[in-house]
């Protein structure tokens, strides 16, 4: 039996919807897990990625922590895959790109009604926001893209099957979705 392939997954500025859609491969996850070991992933709760063959990243990059995680994935994964609309074009979180992020922070933390401490928090535990939400390919080299909001389960299945079979991954026509 050949060695299992290590796969890591994460969600940056995303909603985990892509992960949910991934799970929609349903019972096919069983044969998949015979060929794959999940490394860092919300499914394993492992906090850092080790060396992996494949990294699937959902969500765009909206803050320092996202960038840190993305760089870890890029460093550890031979093949990095941007998964879903947010990872590919910023998606919903990028709707804030037309506002100045300082204005947004002040508005939310100092002007909204019902606040007791009217101050923009500066807790080091809170990652700093970038001026804009960016898709992954503007920050690291991305090898493949699986579009959709979320990508259909078929897209994950087809993509990973090809990759595990050593073939150039191709998404079947109906599996390319932008919404």
């Amino acid at each position: 039996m050949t060695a299992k392939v290590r796969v890591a997954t994460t969600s940056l500025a995303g909603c985990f919807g892509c992960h949910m859609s991934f799970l929609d491969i349903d019972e096919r996850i069983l044969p998949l897990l015979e060929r794959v070991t999940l490394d860092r992933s919300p499914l394993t709760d492992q906090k850092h990625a080790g060396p992996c063959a494949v990294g699937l990243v959902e969500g765009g990059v909206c803050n320092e922590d996202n960038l840190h995680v993305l760089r870890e994935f890029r460093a550890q994964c031979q093949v990095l895959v941007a998964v879903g609309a947010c990872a590919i074009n910023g998606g919903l979180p990028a709707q804030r790109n037309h506002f100045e992020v300082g204005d947004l922070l002040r508005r939310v933390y100092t002007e909204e009604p019902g606040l007791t401490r009217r101050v923009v928090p500066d807790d080091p535990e809170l990652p700093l926001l970038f001026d804009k939400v960016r898709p992954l390919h503007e920050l690291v080299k991305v090898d493949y893209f699986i579009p959709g909001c979320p990508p259909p389960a078929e897209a994950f299945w087809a993509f990973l099957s090809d990759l595990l079979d050593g073939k150039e991954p191709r998404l079947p026509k109906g599996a390319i979705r932008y919404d």
Partner: protein
Amino acid sequence: MRSASDILNAHRGDPTRLVQILRDAQHACGNWLPARVLSEIARGLGLPRARVEGVAGFYAFLNLKPVGRFRVLVSDNVTDRFAGSAETCGALCQRLGVKRGHVRSDGRVSVDFTSCTGLCDQGPALLVNGLAIPQVTGERLDQVVRLIEADTPVDEWPADLRRVQDGVRLQGPVLGATLEPGAALHRVLHASPDDVLATLKDSKLRGRGGAGFPVATKWETCRTAPGDSVVVCNADEGEPGTFKDRALLMRRADLVVEGMTIAARFTGATQGFIYLRGEYEFLLPHLNEVLSKRRAAKLLGTGICGDRGFDFDVDVHLGAGAYVCGEETALLESLEGKRGVPRHRPPFPVTHGYLGRPTTVNNVETYADAAVIFGLGLEAWKALGTEQSSGSKLLSIAGDVERPGIFEVPWGTTVREVLKLAGAGSVKAVQVGGPSGELISPKELDRRIAFEDLPCAGAIAVFNESRDLLEVVVNYAHFFAHESCGFCTPCRVGTHVATRSLDKLRQGRGSSAELAELGTLTRLLRDTSHCGLGNTAPNAWRHYLDKFPDDLARRLQAGFVPAFDVDAALVAARTARGETP
């Protein structure tokens, strides 16, 4: 102050004169076009308001938002850069207390860059409210600052400050022509169209604007096309580094108009236009004077040379800051009062040009050449040049040479000979024909300026060993992005994307990813653009990448480097937290 209705009346309420009307209205409104004025103009011309606004929004010299009452534009060609234009711009901003691209709080002045103004031999140059001011350094810069602070209108500035040299260094048959006004025309007057055509064919005269289309074919097609034909002189000399038409119009305007009149005689045109680039507004009084004198001498107007059937007159239209209007169909759109967007071809202007009429569009130099051919005779002309490139060529040479200026040389002259004439020292590269032409390396200096080898519409820019060629290429790429009309996807987006890649390479942050992207853009622009602007926009970076691989290699990073700058991207959030960045 002139009202909108005065201006509309002065232009006979003619919508084809919209660009001229907008120029005048802007002048009357303190350098910009308020929304209310656009509405008035639209009503007066019977045009949809949005169309008027769209035209105003197209041209770089028409402003939909307030600029300074003194609008100072610094010519940003790369040779101006090397002559110190950035320092001039910085000094002006500092002395006038204004940030580049902004208006001073009192509304007096704004300072910004503009595309090449055609004064590369006399840089760094400015346009102040449209008028050219050459050599703005030292005492002349002080003078500009003083005049602005004293609120002296530009047309009252000392003549010496506004004097542009014609820059002629070497004359040939065209610049040195001693023809009396009308001499060439008289020869054509008594010749049959067949004889004129035969002479044109025999002369092998080809268009001087760049494309090199045979003049005989163009004129003959126009002559035989149905409809009232029109003669247009393309004086929209926008290719950065080209300023030879400036010299021709200063020194030999008579010859140019004579060539146009010969074309009119041959094609049967009664209406003519000179489309003069906005940057050359300073030439307008001179051109109008030449036209008046010719009218008085019966060389223009009705009954030219006493021939009652020969009517032809010429009107000068000013451009308003759009390189793309040098493309003949964009020029015609602009001449019709529209956005300068190139048309689909076919049909070509020779059959469907200005207002759908057959139109002969030629470069300034082409008309002057035609007048010389008929005035001095074929033999003198054919004695110069090569098999496919007859006669002489005006070159405008700038950059790292001792004697920048205009040189009229026979076609077939080598680049090496040209460089010697202008006094070039060490040479790292030469840009022949401007950014849309060809960047050549020192190995290629024996190539000839000729349609069969190195075609050239006039610009020669010389770069010495100390120059950063990537700075040249980056400057050109920004030029094309700024001047793209935005009609087609590859040019509108592609020229801009290219500037990002090239900027990154120049910052030393580029890698094979940028080279791949530039490769894609080169192919896309060349193969899918709507017009020549997009087709030729990649030339400079393509030649640089092909011919100067060592120059590039030392700037390339091994792996992907993002354009993203973490610290810059965090400034806003840190400031909001109360940290001082």
